[in-house]
């Protein structure tokens, strides 16, 4: 060591979460804004005009369940009830599939507990023909739709004879073009840039459809995220760039992805993209921000980046145990609460809903999901070996099967 400097020796900074097992999290790092306090600019605004919006937090629902401020959307009560039911259905679906995984009927599962509002309310703001490029935690995009069968989704999860993906993909890696749901990769961030390309194609074709890209806080560190922002800005692509900041990437706190003392929304402004930071557990805020971004894209004003602040209430996957790295009661103490409880409180506050109706809806949805599972299991599960034939393994590698694959299939003896 030279010892020539008048300063103390250099020290490497490695970020840490403010809570660990046995030590309650200090959530003040989230820097929340009061509901209704953040302004709503016109949809044709410039990225420059969204600088403040990338550091504050768009919120609509206050602690009393009232919808307040300029972002409060004009959604009728029936639509809100549909949203509530879709979130409840998503949570029930996740719970049953978690159980089915423990029963070895599927190999693996990923729930979106606590993040239901993001996918469900976002899907309400899109139109038929728009294309989402989801990660593995946006099953709500499918479960919010009336035209997607839970049985089909469960058959994929169970890799059974009716699995539309023929057992080739891990559970949850759905593909459903007709429902505007691009094939889920499993390699993170790759699809963020593909969504930009899809939006560019729509613009090249003179179409009216838009794309919606999805990524988590953790994988914003991948180069594909930054590449996507550059391309989206350069070509003014009609795309919504969704960053779901659920605070945790497996065991890694969002500060390790670069969220410490800044926000992921701020990345967008630096790239010339209008950017919002939004309460992801607030159904009304999610809908309002999504609709704002969708209108911008559809009117050719270009991309919008939205950071959805939320909390991954469950484990990363069925292979994860979060009690090893964060406080067990963290979600209960998370200041943005539970999206289902919050929308329920709002519907009760406006006189459209009651505890009794909620309980009845819960029972109905549980029965609906259970019936779907029973139906799906009739086509087999991973446990009972009712999986698609191994011969199908050689199909679709190419459009037409080349000779070498034909030979290999023969070698397998099928």
């Amino acid at each position, binding site marked *: 060591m030279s010892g020539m400097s008048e300063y103390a020796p250099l020290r490497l900074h490695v970020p840490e979460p403010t809570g660990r097992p046995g030590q309650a999290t200090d959530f003040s790092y989230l820097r929340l804004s009061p509901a209704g306090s953040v302004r709503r600019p016109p949809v044709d605004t410039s990225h420059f005009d969204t600088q403040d919006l990338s550091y504050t937090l768009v919120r609509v629902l206050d602690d009393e369940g009232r919808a307040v401020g300029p972002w409060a959307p004009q959604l009728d009560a029936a639509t809100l009830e549909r949203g509530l039911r879709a979130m409840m259905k998503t949570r029930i679906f996740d719970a049953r599939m978690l159980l089915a995984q423990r029963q070895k009927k599927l190999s693996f599962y990923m729930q979106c507990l606590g993040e239901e509002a993001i996918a469900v309310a976002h899907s309400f703001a899109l139109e038929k023909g728009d294309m989402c490029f989801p990660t593995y935690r946006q099953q709500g995009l499918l479960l919010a739709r009336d035209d997607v069968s839970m049985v089909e989704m469960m058959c994929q999860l169970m890799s059974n004879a009716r699995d539309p993906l023929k057992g080739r993909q891990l559970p949850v890696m759905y593909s459903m073009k007709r429902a505007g749901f691009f094939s889920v990769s499993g390699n993170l961030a790759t699809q963020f*840039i593909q969504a930009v390309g899809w939006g560019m194609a729509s613009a090249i074709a003179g179409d009216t459809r838009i794309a919606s890209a999805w990524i988590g806080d953790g994988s914003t560190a991948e180069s*594909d995220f930054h*590449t996507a922002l550059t391309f989206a800005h350069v070509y003014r692509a009609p795309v919504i760039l969704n960053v779901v900041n659920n605070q945790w990437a497996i065991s890694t706190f969002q500060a390790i992805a670069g969220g410490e003392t800044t926000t992921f929304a701020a990345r967008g402004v630096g790239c010339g993209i209008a950017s919002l930071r939004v309460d992801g557990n607030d159904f009304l805020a999610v809908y309002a921000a999504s609709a704002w971004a969708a209108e911008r894209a559809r009117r050719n004003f270009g991309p919008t980046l939205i950071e959805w602040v939320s909390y991954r209430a469950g484990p990363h996957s069925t292979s994860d145990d979060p009690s090893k790295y964060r406080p067990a009661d963290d979600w209960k103490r998370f200041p943005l609460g539970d999206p289902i409880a919050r929308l329920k409180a709002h519907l009760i506050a406006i006189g459209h809903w009651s505890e009794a109706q909620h309980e009845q809806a819960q029972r109905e949805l549980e029965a609906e999901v259970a019936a779907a599972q029973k139906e799906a299991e009739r086509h087999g599960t991973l446990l009972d070996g009712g999986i698609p034939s191994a011969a199908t393994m050689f199909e679709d590698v190419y459009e037409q099967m080349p000779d070498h694959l034909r030979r290999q299939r023969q070698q397998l003896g099928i």
Partner: protein
Amino acid sequence: MSKQATVQAADAPGLDAAAVSVEGAQAGKPVPMTMIQALRSALDVSMARDARVVVFGEDVGYFGGVFRVTEGLQAKYGKSRCFDTPISESGIVGVGIGMAGYGLRPVVEIQFADYVYPATDQIVSEAARMRYRSVGDFSAPLTIRMPCGGGIYGGQTHSQSPEAFFTHVCGLRTVMPSNPYDAKGLLIAAIECNDPIIFLEPKRLYNGPFDGHHERPVVPWSRHPLGMVPEGYYKLPIDAASVFRPGKDLTVLAYGTMVWVAACAAEETGIDAEIIDLRALWPMDLETVLASVRKTGRCVVVHEATRTSGFGAELAALVQEHCFHHLEAPIERVTGWDTPYPHAQEWDYFPGPARVGEAFKRAMEA
């Protein structure tokens, strides 16, 4: 089938008529083209025929590409169908995959094959598996063009031949033409193919055939029959080899520049080599390869890329698996050395006709 194109095929030495069967009726009269002009013609024809074809990459728009392959396309088809991109190979391929998912048919240029590695995740994990993982719900009909190979004093970052990285990946097609006629017919076929295609262009062949004698003047394509390329539309099979030079003494498996080097070695050694120009590296035309080896009983594999785990290893394995009992000599491999492509020592690295000729002699003497 176009009459002119058929005549051209029959007139062109090194091309067997069967392998150049021309599809479509619009193939025009043959005119002299460099490989660059032939590739440009393929893009032009494809963009004119199909509004879904879009062309983009670094410097390809207004300027027309550093090798000028896309020159004039932006002026002719507009900025939304031929445009410049940021310097990001993962971005270029990634947006291409998204566009293909939408229903366009992107043809992207990677400025040098040496620059393709940042796009590896998009190519290997995404484009190559899109059809498979979604059971055809989505696919990635994307053509990824890239100049490859050395011989232009490009050093380690402008000379590589990365074909083996791609032949290893299931779901990709990897092709490499050796002349303007094939380049145009294969590029049109690649654009029309519904599988993702790695289209490798040996840049030392852009302006003329190159037999490895760098000390001699460059022969322009205009002085070679394979530089006579039909105007208009025609395409070649995307998975067929051609017998570039018929012979009886031994079989050479080669592609790109090495086809010409091998032909030179045959002339210089007097060994009557049958040179198979693979054209399609993978999936490949195994039948043509095996028929030749069964006839000659000897096999020399030649490529410019580094040796270990190179595509030649796969070729040698396939030949011995399928016709071991026809072999009268060990299979010879002639390749680049297992070093980065050097700059000043380029011609000591390049497997020229002398090294190929020595391998011919070893194969004949064994």
